């Protein structure tokens, strides 16, 4: 029955002169999502609307699922398009449409016509009334409710006539690529993939960095991160994943610094390295999955201590989220199952039994000086290990 979809978008509509940029990006992202679907599609922009038209047979559910991954889309409306063959015929088509979409007629409805083609013989009000009448005649149980209808039936008179009433919610947000690029610190946990998702929802393109610590972490842990990046890239578009060998830095910190401060100092070096890579790759900020108070290294004091080394803004989209809320998003975007695979990541291997929860920045800075002898060299070497994997969801 359906051959096309009307794509609704919200915030883009208020973007003034830049609007076309946003719309073009949205079309681009829709096309990227549709490459994963069976069938051929055409994505068109006309009169402030975006349409997806199927040019061949297609899988309805699969197409909707993939359209739901496109940021900027607030609603997906499956549309029935009919030729204008007189008002009589239109009434018949609408009755047939309602009959098929709503088998149970014990519902209320309201017709909302829009006449983009002004030479149509009836005006909007007349169309509303006459279609309503046709439906009431066809189905005895159906009732009209103009205030809170169960079904809002839209009739759009254009070159063709579009009939739709179902709005499948999209993810919202802004199209990827309309807001610069950020560098995500991706571990194998639950939080960081969600953080990547949240930031890319605001139109930010993302790259990611993962700190690998062989032999303390395994190839499976690395594969897990690749798999997570792949799931995130379903929403965010292609991701360049940077894999950095962090073992020597970690061991050096272990040798030279108090063990209860290991995690903080280690994270300071992760931030420094991430920022280096971010700069080289044209990123405008760092993204982490931190949430206040979740673990010792995420108290206000600890965040201050890690933030201290950054010159770029650090975006922490989960900062006010509870763990359960983060888990819910990760389940929604399908990273949860992968995140909970039990492979060690570099953050957990040397964690102290009682790490500091209120680190003193000055003390941390003083202890970090113990590393002066070799740390610059080690950071340089670590940066040279950068292995870049381009990750795309296909």
């Amino acid at each position, binding site marked *: 029955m359906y051959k096309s979809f009307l794509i609704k978008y919200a915030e883009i509509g208020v973007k003034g002169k830049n609007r076309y940029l946003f719309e073009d990006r949205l079309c681009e992202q829709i096309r990227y999502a549709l490459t994963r679907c069976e069938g051929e599609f055409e994505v068109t922009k006309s009169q402030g609307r975006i349409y997806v038209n199927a040019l061949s047979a297609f899988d309805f559910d699969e197409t909707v699922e993939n359209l739901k991954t496109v940021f900027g889309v607030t609603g997906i409306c499956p549309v029935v398009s009919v030729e204008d063959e007189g008002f009589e015929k239109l009434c018949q088509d609408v009755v047939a449409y309602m009959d098929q979409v709503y088998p149970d007629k014990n519902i209320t409805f309201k017709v909302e016509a829009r006449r983009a083609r002004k030479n149509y013989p009836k005006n909007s009000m007349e169309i509303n009334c006459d279609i309503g009448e046709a439906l009431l005649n066809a189905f005895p149980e159906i009732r009209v409710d103009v205030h809170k209808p169960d079904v809002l039936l839209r009739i759009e008179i254009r070159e063709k006539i579009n009939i739709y009433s179902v709005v499948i919610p999209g993810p919202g947000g802004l199209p990827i690529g309309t807001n610069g690029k950020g560098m995500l610190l991706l571990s194998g946990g639950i939080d960081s993939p969600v953080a990547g998702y949240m930031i890319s929802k605001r139109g930010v393109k993302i790259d990611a960095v993962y700190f690998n610590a062989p032999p303390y972490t395994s*190839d499976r842990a690395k594969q897990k991160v690749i798999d997570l990046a792949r799931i995130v890239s379903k929403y965010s578009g292609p991701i360049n994943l940077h894999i950095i060998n962090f073992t020597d830095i970690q061991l050096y910190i272990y040798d030279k610094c108090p063990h209860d401060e290991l995690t903080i100092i280690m994270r300071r070096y992760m931030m420094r390295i991430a920022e280096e890579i971010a700069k080289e790759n044209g990123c405008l900020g760092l993204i982490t999955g931190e949430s206040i108070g979740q673990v010792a290294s995420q108290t206000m004091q600890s965040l201050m201590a890690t933030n201290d080394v950054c010159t770029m803004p650090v975006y922490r989209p989960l900062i006010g989220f509870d763990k359960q809320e983060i888990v819910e998003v990760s389940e929604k975007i399908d990273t949860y199952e992968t995140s909970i695979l039990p492979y060690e990541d570099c953050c957990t*291997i040397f*964690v102290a039994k009682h790490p500091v929860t209120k680190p003193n920045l000055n003390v941390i800075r003083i202890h970090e000086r113990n590393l002066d002898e070799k740390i610059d060299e080690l950071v340089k070497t670590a940066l040279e290990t950068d292995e870049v*994997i381009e990750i795309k969801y296909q």
Partner: protein
Amino acid sequence: MLAVLIVKLNTFEGVNMTEVYLDNSATTKCLPEVAALMTHILCEDYGNPSSMHRKGVEGEKYVRYAREVIAKCMKVQEKEILFTSGGTESDNIALIGGAFANSRAGRHIITTKIEHPAILQTCAYLEEQGFEVTYLPVDSTGVIRLKDLERAMTPHTILVSIMHTNNEIGAVQPIEQAGELIKRMNPRTLFHVDAVQGFGKFRIYPKRMNIDLMSVSAHKIHGPKGVGFLYINEKAKVRPIMFGGGQQKGMRSGTENVPGIAGMAKAIEELFVDFEPKINYLYGLKERFVKGVSSIEGIQINGPARRDGAPHVVSVSIEGIRSEVMLHALEDKGIYVSAGSACASNKPAISATLKAIGVEKQYLDSTLRFSFSVFTTEEEIDFTVKCMSELIPMLRRYTRH
């Protein structure tokens, strides 16, 4: 999907070092002559043994050949061999099929605490189905006490399942004595032996040892994965657990895995050529390795160390180093080993076997399994010992608190 695979391949690119594979209890490399025979069957003689034409007869010939080889090496009848998809399926048919076929005589089953999950999980299922299971303890070398078995036997015991060789520590059970004891106490009790690790390392003759059912897997003996067999004594009552086209006299429906079955037979033929020298060679490797690592400080060998145990498995606990770290450090040198047992080590659960033999707490998470094959060389053993003695002091410096 392909992209991900390519990514995977790329990450391993440039790694061009010699590999020392010491994880032969997890799986073994397939013999080239086995692979060649299988390729020939897959591409040329690919007929379905159930087909009535010549191509089908060709396929059937390979299955017959396999039956003949396998029956002969164990001195049993050809009709007593049932081809399966491997150790797990054989264990499942033996336990589930054996238990349900004999449930009128009783609902009691005996097994041990150190069985493979294929046995333990199947027993858990049978418990849900109303059977009662007794789990025999083991001593500090991982061996059951016959007294315990004798005490556990009741007039309602329908099935006893004991593994021949333990996959984690190489402990070998007194199968012959157990078989004798079971039959003396209750001739109708079925005796199942999980010989996945023991087959090909020991001569096992079911008839002589009162074994009614015995599970074997091909990929542990240089054969292909996905194939194995279950020996079923002609007098033993066992019900099928899979239904369909009635292949293998209805005991296990589904088209026979002809290339796998033939490959397994070929591997078994090779296995018993110069059998005793091979086993002696394996014991030699084991002794060389045990002697080597024993000189490293803070090392403990679990289970039977000398000729009491299996010739190919050594379990080593290394004080102060988590097994996962040691495993990846060795991997870095091209040496592949297991943490505990490979079948259980994907989930870092504490090994039931190690617990059952009373390994101390601080060693439980610090245990590696080294398992050898006839392709392992003395140089590889020496190289491994050398790497371990270098790595261990280094890794001990960095520990979790």
